């Protein structure tokens, strides 16, 4: 850690991991509700569990991005953070607001929560992923603006690098496009059309800029490859992200009332959306192969390479699978969508945040890398979570294909609920994979509590394996 103020990232990352754990617990509850329909009913109905699951995901990723910003921007700008106090204050505001929102979801009927939080003043609730009460949404905007002010002031007085520039464009975009969550007309087509300006322009747009910048930052550190080369890659990757992804929004406009030219535009451009993700994979592997130094934090390098591969598979390949409009006509709104959503969010965003955490946490705890044992446990957690996610995705894809066949392709289509009964084997296997994911996550958390002598480059070689016993 080069600057003392970078340590404000630490609480952000700890909170991110805590909320991630909560997300997985609610994921497992839902996985069981898919099979045993009345599990935890009426205490936690499915819609509440799902809202908690997805909202925790969004909030922990935001914590992760903010933590990454507070760490990365001072180091890139070569100066202390403009205001560490503001960063800590915003941390507590965001954590408490987030926790109160989740408590509200779980303890009150949603309609009552809407009534108590002023949804009648400006109704924004009850739309997928944007379920937060108005005051929480306003809170997110305030926290985001404070965060952006803090980082922007830091950059303005310091060195301006391509990495920090791309990171800031991504983060400003995140805040700006979130403002569309306040637009909620009665016209359902307009509502949905601009809802995607938050959701798609986040995850298939500006979030990829944030992701690319985080990945580039870690790759410079762990490989020692020349900044000029890495930043050239970064610009090309994010260029292709926006060249394909902006018009690629059209793949959400096929069946919601938008004009039919979006079927052509959305299919063609979103079919190219895997390109930037493929470039990220090539980028990560290429930089690691061309490394000019050996970094003792091997597990951070593993996460960085894993992010490239899994983002390409989840967002790229699984996205492409159902993005052409003639295919999407049958897959739209089925378990195929769920399969893609899971692997894309894990592979791109969960993993890039864990890459950043893996690289920075040891530094913030006063060492270049964790002990060999801690790293080995973290590598186990990497493989368990990643393989579990591959299985979850495959089983949901299987469920989706069968669902499409029975409910949409068949000459005698079955009803939705009758179809669901036929998918149970896949849901059982998905639940088992979810338990495997939980085991991986528990190991991940445990790895932070394993101390011992920090690994060094020498201790990686079999000859000098002194750290292995630590």
């Amino acid at each position, binding site marked *: 850690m080069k600057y003392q103020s970078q340590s404000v990232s630490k609480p952000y990352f700890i909170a991110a991991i805590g909320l991630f754990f909560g997300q997985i617990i609610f994921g497992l509850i839902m996985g069981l509700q898919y099979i045993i329909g009345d599990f935890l009913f009426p205490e936690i109905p499915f819609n509440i569990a799902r809202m908690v699951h997805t909202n925790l995901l969004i909030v922990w990723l935001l914590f992760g991005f903010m933590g990454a910003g507070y760490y990365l921007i001072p180091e890139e700008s070569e100066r202390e953070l403009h205001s560490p106090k503001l960063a800590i204050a915003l941390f507590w505001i965001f954590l408490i607001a987030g926790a109160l929102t989740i408590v509200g979801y779980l303890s009150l009927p949603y309609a009552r929560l809407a009534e108590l939080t002023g949804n009648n003043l400006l109704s924004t609730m009850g739309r997928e992923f944007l379920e937060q009460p108005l005051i929480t949404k306003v809170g997110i905007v305030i926290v985001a603006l404070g965060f952006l002010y803090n980082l922007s002031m830091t950059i303005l007085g310091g060195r301006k690098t391509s990495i920090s520039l791309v990171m800031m464009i991504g983060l400003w975009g995140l805040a700006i496009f979130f403002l569309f969550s306040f637009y909620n007309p009665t016209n359902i087509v307009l509502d949905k059309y601009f809802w995607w300006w938050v959701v798609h322009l986040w995850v298939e747009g500006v979030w990829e800029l944030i992701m690319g910048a985080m990945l580039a930052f870690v790759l410079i550190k762990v490989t020692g490859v020349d900044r000029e080369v890495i930043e050239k890659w970064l610009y090309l990757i994010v260029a292709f992200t926006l060249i394909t992804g902006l018009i690629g929004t059209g793949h959400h406009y096929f*069946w919601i009332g938008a004009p039919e030219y979006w079927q052509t*535009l959305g299919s063609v451009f979103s079919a190219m959306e895997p390109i930037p993700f493929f470039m990220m994979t090539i980028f990560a592997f290429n930089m690691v192969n061309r490394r000019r130094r050996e970094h003792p934090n091997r597990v951070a390098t593993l996460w960085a390479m894993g992010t490239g591969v899994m983002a390409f598979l989840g967002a790229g390949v699984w996205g492409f699978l159902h993005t052409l409009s003639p295919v999407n006509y049958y897959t739209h709104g089925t*378990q195929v969508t769920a399969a893609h959503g899971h692997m894309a969010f894990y592979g791109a965003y969960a993993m890039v945040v864990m890459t950043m955490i893996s690289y920075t946490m040891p530094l913030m705890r006063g060492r270049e890398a964790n002990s060999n044992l801690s790293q080995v446990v973290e590598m186990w957690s990497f493989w368990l979570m990643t393989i579990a996610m591959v299985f979850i995705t495959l089983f949901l894809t299987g469920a989706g294909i069968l669902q499409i066949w029975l409910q*949409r392709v068949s000459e005698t289509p079955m009803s939705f609920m009758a179809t669901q009964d036929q998918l149970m084997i896949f849901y059982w296997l998905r639940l088992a994979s979810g338990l495997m994911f939980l085991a991986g996550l528990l190991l991940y958390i445990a790895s932070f509590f394993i101390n011992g002598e920090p690994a060094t480059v020498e201790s990686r070689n079999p000859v000098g394996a002194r750290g292995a016993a630590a």
Partner: protein
Amino acid sequence: MSSGFTKGMARNIFYGGAMFFFLLFVGLSVDTVVNRLPDRDNRAAINDQVARGKEIWEVNNCIGCHTLLGEGAYFAPELGNVYARRGPEFIKMWIKMQPTGTPGRRQMPNFHLTDEELDDLVAFLKYVNGVDTANWPPNIEG
């Protein structure tokens, strides 16, 4: 990458490409919203009752289990075409009789809607059913 390709060139592709495609996206969206949607989004059917129905849809987080035009959760049936599939009376009766309480089956909460609120909700579902969705879903089962 060859050495002739510089970071500056990559940066220009980024800024130029992003700007061009963002403006194109905004332009297409203006065309969609101004010129195309009026003929497709069934806006003639929107009235106060539909507006109230949409609020009821939202404040009970229906999207947390159901899909509407294919978007939402995948735990319960598609409702964009439920008006055509089941008709108004069935929808109201069904909502009133929840939860079924059948052991092991997926349960829908009872939202304690009044008769007037049920009519509002049905009006909203009827309006959505009238949106031109390019012939989606493939069949009535959604």
